[in-house]
């Protein structure tokens, strides 16, 4: 099992938790507009590659993003494609896409990803404030 990743969120990078302990916690949340998107997301993608070799019985991956730029959208797709691959290999994977109930763009972004990747995908709205 790869060692857990815990990255604190900042005003331009999201909080990331990738932890296999117990039922596992897999979450990317907050804002994503890093100066160098590849440098930020590469370790996450590498972690998922290692995890995919022997994943938990069930993987629930939560996206709870407030904002992401277009460069991040491409890397988020790469994350989702890793999850799709795990699903293709017979593992139990569920993506939960959380969006503020007043944010149509974030809801549509989730719909768009759900269209592209073939993996069980749940849209979850939440109330801000």
């Amino acid at each position, binding site marked *: 099992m790869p060692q857990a990743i815990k990255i604190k969120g900042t*005003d*331009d990078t999201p909080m990331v938790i990738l932890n296999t302990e117990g039922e596992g916690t897999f979450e990317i949340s907050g804002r994503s*507009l890093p*100066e*160098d*998107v*590849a440098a930020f997301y590469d370790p996450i993608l590498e972690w998922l590659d290692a995890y995919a070799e022997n994943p938990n019985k069930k993987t629930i991956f939560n996206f709870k993003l407030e*904002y992401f*730029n*277009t*460069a991040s*959208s*491409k*890397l988020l*797709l790469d994350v989702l494609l890793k999850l799709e691959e795990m699903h293709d290999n017979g593992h139990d994977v569920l993506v939960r896409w959380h969006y503020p109930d*007043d*944010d*149509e*763009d974030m809801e549509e972004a989730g719909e*768009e990803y759900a*269209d*592209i990747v073939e993996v069980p995908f749940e849209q979850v709205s939440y109330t801000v404030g």
Partner: protein
Amino acid sequence: MQNIKRIFNVFLKKEVLNLSKTEVMTDLEPKTEVQEITSDKESLDFVYEFYVRMKRNKIHLAYEGEITHQITKAFTSLTENNMAKEEDYASVQKKVFHVMVECLQNISKHAENRHHIVTSKDGRGIFMISKGESEYNVTTGNTIPNDKVEELQKMLENINSLDKEGLNKLYKQQMKEGRLSDRGGAGLGFIDIARKTGEKLIFCFLPVDETKSFFVLTSTIPRVKE
């Protein structure tokens, strides 16, 4: 050329252009002080006129210089704070924020900047944001090599020819097939600005010399919630 006029009109509305200097000067306080302290009148006139024009056209921010990630963060947070105070719709605020990030990152990632290319990845350019009765306008300008003009023009014209569905399709395709450039651009910014604002991109290329052109882009974000 039509686009140049449109961009020009966005910021320098016709009535302002037609005003003579005296008319402009009579309009705002405190004109007497300005005249009294004139030691170098010409330069003060310029500052005052610049101020009047910015006020008139509700330009919140105008900047020329290096556009870095730090600048991007500073401008977006400044605008975010201003918008929060002015009680715009949250959805409008998010769109303005998004357009600003994409426009500024476009310059910091793509701008032609031979002098700094070795020491820094950042580009130079101008950035302006204005708030009208019914919309926000975000304008950027930066030099690009002439051999990139045709490609960029075609890409922008194509984006402007598409409706929302077409833009969504193009975005998906580009996200799946496009590769991240060396500088971390995904080629998605313009498409996303067009689909999130629901407005056409206003752009033009002004020839600078035989190797460079100045690329100006204005994105409009409607303030009225649909």
